[in-house]
């Protein structure tokens, strides 16, 4: 394995009621900035927050996890895509509305020494999660190349921010409505040779492709995964993935507290949704070596 697992965040999360300070449409998404100083001051790039949805009459009990795009000056910014009822409700919040939020949650991206050139790869709203990271890397003088891809122009995200922060930015769309036509992975191949570390956030298929490409070239790659989460804080065990630990053994690891940032080479993407025999404790489930 090339990667070292991301360390635990330095500070624990808090739960707060945070008013919406700003709301902005960004292509197909809604960007919300909330007033949450104690969350902002604790945030490390790559962490996420969890919002209660639907207000006091809600039938939706579970929080929705949303990656933190940027955190600073007392505020936290997120980009939300209206997928189902919970995220749709979030995108409908207006300035002044109060949100019940827990964060920052999970582990951030490990930060490389300043001299290591970094390649950041975002897919869809996944690019938002890389903005804080890009800022942090730029701050310490790291050379940053960013690739933002999406199915179509309206589903691109954070391109202006990344353009401002990165040394090089490439945009790809599957349908060619913006940037180069094609998948992000094509652009990634091109920049990989100059990269010392890769960070990726986006759909699972993309994470897998980016991680495979980087690992094949011996470049450490960190991915921020998106697994269905019931609690977001590590107590329910719904969000697990088969991840290879430092001892070489695979465990079902919680993406909320042991992730969402994992070494890409450590995530057994092909086995997600299955129970491989060599996962620790699979034997007790009756799964034996084939």
């Amino acid at each position, binding site marked *: 394995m090339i990667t070292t697992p991301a360390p635990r965040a330095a500070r624990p999360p808090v739960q707060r009621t945070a008013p919406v300070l700003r709301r902005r449409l960004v292509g197909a998404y809604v960007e919300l900035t909330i007033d949450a100083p104690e969350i902002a001051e604790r945030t490390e790039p790559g962490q996420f927050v969890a919002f209660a949805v639907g207000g006091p009459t809600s039938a939706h009990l579970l929080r929705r996890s949303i990656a933190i795009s940027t955190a600073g000056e007392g505020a936290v910014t997120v980009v939300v895509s209206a997928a189902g009822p919970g995220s749709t409700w979030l995108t409908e919040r207006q300035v002044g509305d109060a949100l019940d939020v827990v964060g920052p949650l999970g582990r951030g991206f490990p930060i490389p020494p300043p001299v290591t050139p970094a390649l950041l790869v975002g897919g869809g709203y996944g690019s938002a999660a890389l903005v804080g990271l890009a800022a942090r890397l730029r701050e310490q003088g790291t050379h940053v190349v960013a690739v933002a891809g999406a199915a179509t122009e309206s589903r691109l995200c954070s391109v202006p921010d990344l353009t401002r922060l990165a040394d090089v930015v490439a945009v790809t769309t599957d349908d060619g409505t913006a940037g180069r036509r094609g998948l992000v992975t094509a652009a990634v191949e091109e920049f990989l040779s100059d990269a010392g570390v890769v960070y990726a956030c986006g759909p699972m298929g993309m994470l897998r492709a980016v991680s495979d490409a980087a690992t094949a070239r011996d470049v450490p790659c960190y991915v921020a995964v998106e697994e269905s989460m*019931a609690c977001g*804080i*590590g107590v*329910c065990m719904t969000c697990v993935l088969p991840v290879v630990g430092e001892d070489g053994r695979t465990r079902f690891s919680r993406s909320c507290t042991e992730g969402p940032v994992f070494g890409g080479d450590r995530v057994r993407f092909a086995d997600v949704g299955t129970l491989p025999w060599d996962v620790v404790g699979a034997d007790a489930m009756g799964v034996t070596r084939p």
Partner: protein
Amino acid sequence: MTVVDAGIDMSTALGRVAIPSPVLTASGCSAFGQELEPFVDLSAIGAVVTKSVQLRPRSGRPTPRMAETPSGMLNSIGLQGPGIDGLLADDLPWLAERGARAFVSIAGTRVEDFAELAERLRGAPGVLGLEVNISCPNVESRGEVFACDPAAASDVIAAVRAAADPAHPVYAKLSPDVTDIVGVARAVTDAGADGLSMINTLLGLVIDPDTMRPVLGGVTGGLSGPAIRPVALRCVWQVHQALPEVPILGMGGIRSGLDALQFVLAGASAVSVGTAVFNDPSAVARVHDELAGALAQRGFAGIGEAVGHAHRAAA
């Protein structure tokens, strides 16, 4: 709600062991307590009811492991956990160091498994008692769930009671998926249970309209959350009515102090907060405060007076 702190006596007991608060976590909904530390004072709550542990470490089931449902959720975790060795080595000492009480949930697929777990937990640090999760398939009876068969359930409880530290109260955790919950309650109490935890999840299913297949890898899963609260309250009511002297740890959809109050009035002397923790990580502490306020507002001097009150008021 205004919380009235009128010096309400919130101390209660699990079996004969006193606890300072009637509000506990629910097994499987707060892992082993660690992750709640930023949100809750673990030494102030009634106890941490730990995730059901088995003899060996378990991976649990493949994902997806959950589906959100109206006012609830379905889960199929498959009891992922460290096994008894891990629990004894890491989790119980961690809780003990912090002065938190552990009410240890044990699970197995054979009567002997349960007995061995109880035996291993004798004298373990910080252990307050045992909650026996009998909603597990019995491998010796074609996978029928122990909790659905009064005889099998009693066998487990008798074996655990015999093997456990005599100072540890043993609670049997009942499943609502039975025709006659009072019958099961009576059987396990006769077998030596010091109390009853009620209820475990209801068996449910959700189909994904896109894949047109069950959402969960395990096909069916356990339904929890406020959706099931009326069923849980009915079970507590029925059992307390039939067996008023048996202590009940009530649970199922508790989200607020007034929800907890309903369980207490129906006959529970303590309550567990499960799924609500996913919505609000500080729920256990909040429910304690709200319950104290609600009891004070109603003129109770302590929780003890309120237990089963809804039955007495009838008379």
